[in-house]
């Protein structure tokens, strides 16, 4: 049985004159993501994208990959049938057999865009409904609240019997919103923040701070695994690993202990911004959530924010931990995030961190450090890992 994938576009159908840009970006993302699964023919008509596999193409995997591409409201598989009523009846029975066996109520919805087809839509629905009632004694018709909707579409070249629709990833196509750099540690929050912003069309670059020998190869590997998960949604990501132990040791040696975390985070902002600019990013993204830890109080955020000279997106700022965990389970990063490796933030935590810091004291404390020199050295030793979706 020949099958295709039908994709209904998401909120970008609401766009005006630049809608085309969004559609083009989406099609490009779809093509890229289906790379390696065989040949597909991809075309758009009336807010629907038709993905037709050529021989040997892997449709199951294609469906799964497409369900993670932003810019899509729903998708469904459909079987392609000759435009002939007896064939359509047989196809619906066979193609939807398992769904129909397991349901109690159904209705048929037909759409005839090829007006040369002899039956009108209501007649198609009536005939098919009657046929299925006869074949599946477990079913009754319920037009208001059916468990299953059988959809038939008569188009120019063929008729389609639709399978049950799957919800798409929503959002707008990655790349249409520009590019931003996510600061990623390996915890639960940052992958969720990355995913959330990719959903709004941002292409991602990642910055990870590693502190060997205090942190292990495994901690860095964990971040790679996390980004691989995020890239299933966000597409390709370039990850920059920054050796950070030297800066941390300097801060520890020369600054007051209770300001350690804040000064460290300010360095992270500065280094990230430098990398972001080099990579043509226009914003930073962090996984901060207000009040979650000492470094994420409003006063602390004021201090870290002052170190960055570009917009900082904090999509999780108003979310509870449990809400964040829900998303991390949904995007399958949770199980990786909870692997217990030390990361650069947990190595040197002060006993009593300042929760209401004042910027002025921090600036004074930083006087003891050769900020530019330390950052420069850091940037010279950055390592690039390419994460491919």
């Amino acid at each position: 049985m020949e099958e295709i994938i039908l994709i209904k576009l998401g909120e970008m159908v609401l766009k005006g004159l630049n809608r085309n840009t969004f559609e083009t970006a989406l099609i490009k993302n779809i093509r890229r993501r289906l790379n390696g699964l065989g040949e597909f023919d991809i075309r758009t008509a009336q807010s629907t994208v038709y993905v037709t596999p050529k021989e040997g193409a892997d449709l199951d995997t294609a469906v799964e990959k497409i369900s993670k591409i932003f810019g899509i409201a729903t998708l469904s598989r459909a079987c392609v049938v000759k435009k002939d009523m007896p064939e359509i009846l047989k196809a619906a029975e066979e193609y939807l057999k398992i769904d129909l066996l397991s349901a109690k109520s159904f209705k048929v919805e037909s759409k005839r865009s090829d007006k040369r087809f002899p039956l009108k839509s209501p007649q198609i629905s009536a005939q098919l409904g009657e046929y299925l009632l006869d074949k599946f004694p477990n079913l009754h018709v319920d037009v208001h609240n059916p468990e299953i909707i059988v959809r038939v579409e008569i188009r120019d070249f063929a008729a389609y019997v639709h399978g049950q629709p799957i919800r798409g990833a929503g959002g707008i196509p990655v790349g249409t919103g520009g590019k931003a750099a996510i600061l990623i540690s390996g915890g639960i929050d940052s992958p969720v923040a990355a995913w959330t912003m990719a959903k709004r069309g941002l292409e991602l670059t990642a910055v990870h701070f590693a502190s060997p020998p205090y942190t292990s190869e495994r901690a860095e590997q964990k971040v790679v695994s996390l980004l691989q998960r995020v890239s299933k949604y966000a597409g390709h990501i370039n990850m920059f690993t920054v050796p950070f132990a030297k800066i941390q040791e300097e801060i520890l040696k020369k600054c007051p202990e209770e300001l350690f975390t804040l000064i460290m985070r300010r360095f992270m902002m500065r280094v990230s911004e430098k990398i972001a600019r080099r990579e043509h990013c226009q914003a930073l993204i962090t996984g901060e959530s207000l009040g979650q830890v000492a470094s994420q109080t409003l006063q602390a955020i004021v201090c870290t924010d002052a170190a960055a000279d570009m917009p900082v997106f904090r999509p999780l700022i108003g979310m509870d931990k449990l809400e964040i965990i829900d998303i991390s389970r949904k995007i399958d990063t949770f199980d990786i995030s909870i692997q217990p490796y030390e990361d650069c933030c947990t190595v040197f935590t002060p006993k009593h961190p300042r929760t209401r810091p004042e910027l002025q004291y921090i600036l004074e404390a930083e006087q003891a450090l050769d900020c530019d020199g330390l950052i420069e050295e850091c940037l010279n030793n950055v390592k690039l890992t390419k994460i491919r979706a």
Partner: protein
Amino acid sequence: MGEIYFDNSSTTMVCREAASRIMDMLTNNYGNPSSLHTKGFKAEQEQNSARNEIASFLNVYPEEIYFTSGGTESNNLAIFGAAHAMRKRGNHIVTTAIEHPSVLNVMKQLEKEGFIVTYLKPDSSGKIYPEQIFKAVNPRTILVSMMYVNNEVGSILPIEAVSSAISAARSPALFHVDAVQAFGKLPINPKKLKIDLMSISSHKIHGPKGVGALYIRKGVHIVPRTYGGGQEKDIRPGTEAVPMIVGFGAAVKALPSFDIELKEMKKLNAYCRQKLGEIEDIKINSPEDALPYIINFSAGDVRAETMLHFLSSKEIYVSSGSACSKGKASYVLTSMGLTKQRIASSLRISFSRFNNLEDVDVFIDTLKDGLIEITKRPI
């Protein structure tokens, strides 16, 4: 003339790719993946890439793959583990009469523990139908365990119907698939079929013996059978058999794509069936639409074992029924309702990508010789 190995459903030759990786892991990269140092990390990385290879082959997440010692352990872990975890929600299990002994004997044990097991019966060609599953599952059902491909006759079971049957019955049941014979031979999509647990094995696909895996869908909880130091997330603890695991991964990586290999196998199968069909007294026991790797047939009134040894003396290796239950009358063929004589004379040949049409020719000629020679004998 070299040997002809037509017993690939029993086990396979380890492919070069796997063998050389195993050697390297045994002699160079021998660290314990739980060790914190770099030697351990390197071994862990190799193990992880094997896990990734297998996971992406199945289109699932690597953390859903748990390594075991093989198909039997995976089946035991899945079925006992699921039954014991679900005990409070019901006591009914659905399976088929043609499962592998590592499923059926677990079921027997569970029956002793008070579970009630429904065994679906195949028709005379070894097939099971979706309607049977829908009829068998009820709200007290806590597990449906079904093989994807039968090891003796190669019939393909309708596993695509199971998750719908479970939800239609409003049953909490978990769904286990014994995919040992299907893995690497048919595309399987556990996510699409809503499979909760799935057993696979390495040595059926040119990997080493002694390693297999259980796929456990995220969010599914089963009770472990062994307790230890936390490996495989405590579902299957014990220091991992890293060399074997890496060999398993290499074997999966070396698999040709399904459409190429299936085409080849269909050719071999059709040719072999045609040649067998030309011999009087040969009856094919596998259904028409069986997995093309397997052909089960009965050869007149010649006892299977006699023919097997005759072929073996000519370096042609086939199997009588399943290698796992040597000597006994096949319960699979019995449940298909075949006559005693047909069962007693049944042989199974099973192909791999290392067989070709000439092998079939030699096999058929030798089989014919055997039929003449053996029927001449007094017994």
